């Protein structure tokens, strides 16, 4: 049913996301695109060198996460097609844009923030659900 799946993560709950992804793709000829978006927004008056430092750290983290995702998927689903996408910008917007450009059939991501967290930090998954061009599998984290 699904031929191209976009797996989005910020590094948290990777095990749960991958477990669900593997469950969906098992035994099928599917291409997986792993995406990590470096959120480059900083408040006004953030020192430039701190902004650069954050950018560097988050980019390094993104690379590590995507490499780890590829390794874990290849271990279980041998020979699966995997593509890494590391972008900068607003996470929800970039995930939706990539889903459109790559014409994916499914987006897999996690959800599980408390109501307080959603109010204070916002929710990427909620924004993606509202504007995604395809089905979205939200992995509930308790």
């Amino acid at each position: 049913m699904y031929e191209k799946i976009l797996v989005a993560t910020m590094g948290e709950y990777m095990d749960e996301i991958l477990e669900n992804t593997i469950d969906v793709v098992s035994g099928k000829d599917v291409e997986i695109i792993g995406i990590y978006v470096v959120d480059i927004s900083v408040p006004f008056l953030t020192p430039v060198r701190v902004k650069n430092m954050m950018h560097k750290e988050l980019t390094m983290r993104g690379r590590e996460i995507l490499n780890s995702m590829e390794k874990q998927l290849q271990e279980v689903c041998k020979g699966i097609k995997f593509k890494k996408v590391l972008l900068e910008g607003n996470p929800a917007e970039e995930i939706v844009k990539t889903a459109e450009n790559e014409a994916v059939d499914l987006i897999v991501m996690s959800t599980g923030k408390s109501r307080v967290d959603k109010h204070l930090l916002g929710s990427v998954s909620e924004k993606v659900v509202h504007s995604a061009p395809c089905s979205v599998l939200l992995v509930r984290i308790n």
Partner: protein
Amino acid sequence: MLNIILYIIGLVISLIIVVKSADVFVDNLVEIGSTLGISEIILGVTASAIGTSLPEFGSALIASLSGSVDIGVGTVIGSNIWNIAGILGISATVSGVIRTNKKGLTRDWLMTLITGIILLIFMFFGDIHWSASIIMVAAYGYYLYLLIKSQREQNHVNSSEEEKIDESGNNQNKRNIDKKTIALVVIGLIGLIIGCRILVFSGVELARIAGIPAMIMGLFTLAIGTSIPELVVTLSSAMKGLHDLSIGTVLGSNTFNILIGIGIPALVMTVPVEPLSLTFDAPVMLFITILLMVLIRAGKMKLNRIAGIILVASYITYAVFRLFILV
């Protein structure tokens, strides 16, 4: 009324000038250091350590030089209380959790605590003179040495090869210092001096018009204002999960504020100690520092949302006591 509005506008504009100038000054100073072949590690550690604290230091120094020593000491002690109870409290409350690195936290926290105790001891013996100042500046030099050593070890573990390439690259790529960079350092420094001067002037005048002691103005308005860089850095890094940067910024800033923010002004003139600072503000600063570690340990080396709320509540309690009961 018009005067008050003008001074408040002056306060806000000068704060923006001070923060931006400090940014330009440090960035371009690092650029010059890099061109001169100074190690990236030393530059990075020093810039991170002093970068966000320059506004506090600048206003404390300018206040002392212009005869408002109270406001300078108030800004330093007030900033330190605000940095932990206010900034870390708000950041932990908003982000939900700030994780800590045990080794780095113990080093930075111990240094902040020892620094606070050193200040309290000097304050106990009366006004702070140049002799105390030398010990404070030397202690900061030692702290910087520890930071650089730790960063070197970390870099060595992470990628010894990469570092070698970088260091050899540095030596080979010595360039001439760009005139624009020098100009920006000068502009940053001038902006910092002018901004701090307007900031202190507006603060002193507002205190005079409102009939409140200059110390109070330093403890709250200037302390919170000059800590804007710490607030934006700590909050945004906590929200992005860059926890080391978050807690390290605050503790490093507190150490700098005392050892340099009071140490350097004390080198050029005697810093008087107000009785209430000795009996209330400085002990509260130490209490908040200890409370931070107690909360982190209770949260299994994490500062969670409840701990954040406790810290913010502590700050509000302190402010109410200081503004309405003890003033």
